[in-house]
């Protein structure tokens, strides 16, 4: 049901030309995805997806759009053939891969049998935090999170690098150097 929503949105994105609409649909896509995450018990992820996908990304895209203009040039020739072939090839490979997957929600899937039980059974005692996601995130796999912070830090630096200068300077930017 919700996935069907997503399919509609995704195809709408393919079809639409108006960039604003595309951005809004992308935001919508994130919203729906977040609902799906809630349904799949991934509340933390839903939380983040809501804040990021629907919020920050959309605002950023709009900011970009406000700087680049929303007019979208019509492509002269739809050069669709090769992309379609590539996409279908990839998709078929993936679908081929699904045939041996454990079913959705299968409690006997390897994912549920290995590694994870430790988190579920022992983390409240070992780490003492009720939210297992937090304990895995911050403790068991705390280093990933350090990496994640580094990624965000990198993004901050990268944006500064990219947008700091190179143009006529406005008084505002002067102040910023203080």
């Amino acid at each position: 049901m919700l996935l069907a929503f997503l399919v509609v949105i995704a195809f709408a994105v393919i079809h639409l030309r108006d960039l604003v609409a595309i951005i809004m649909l992308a935001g919508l896509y994130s919203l729906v995805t977040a609902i799906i995450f809630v349904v799949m018990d991934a509340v933390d992820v839903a939380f983040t997806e809501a804040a990021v996908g629907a919020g920050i990304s959309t605002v950023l895209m709009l900011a970009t759009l406000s700087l680049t203009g929303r007019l979208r040039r019509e492509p002269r020739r739809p050069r669709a053939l090769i992309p379609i072939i590539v996409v279908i090839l990839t998709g078929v490979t993936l679908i081929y891969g699904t045939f041996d997957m454990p079913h959705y929600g299968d409690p006997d899937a390897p994912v549920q049998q290995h590694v994870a039980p430790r988190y579920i059974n022992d983390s409240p005692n070992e780490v003492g935090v009720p939210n297992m996601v937090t304990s895995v995130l911050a403790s068991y796999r705390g280093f990933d999170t350090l990496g994640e912070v580094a990624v965000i830090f990198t993004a901050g630096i990268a944006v500064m690098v990219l947008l700091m200068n190179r143009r006529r300077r406005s008084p505002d930017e002067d102040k910023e150097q203080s």
Partner: protein
Amino acid sequence: MNDLLGLYSYWIVIVLMMAGFYVVISSSNLIKKIAGLNIFQTSVFILYISMGKVDGGTAPIVVEGSSNAIYSNPLPHVLILTAIVVGVATTALALALVVRIKEAYGTVDEEAISESDNEL
């Protein structure tokens, strides 16, 4: 038949992924490409999250009082949290680049950009 029913949600996710992928590789507008990239990545996230779900399970936050609750696997959640952050970082960077490209080239269309590159 039962087999197929257990997999259909994966298929839809794959279709979604491919839709995003298609936008990325076919669109010549850079902003649309980024939007496609977002969709692609988000769909991958769904794939991950769906593997962590257990039938009858609940979110992996300890329910006080009940000791026999079934919890879904928290590990994919953690991974995807990280991946989302990576995704937004990429998006921000890409958009900053688009802004600069627009300033430098006056367009955000890939074909137009490569055209004006070739003129040089």
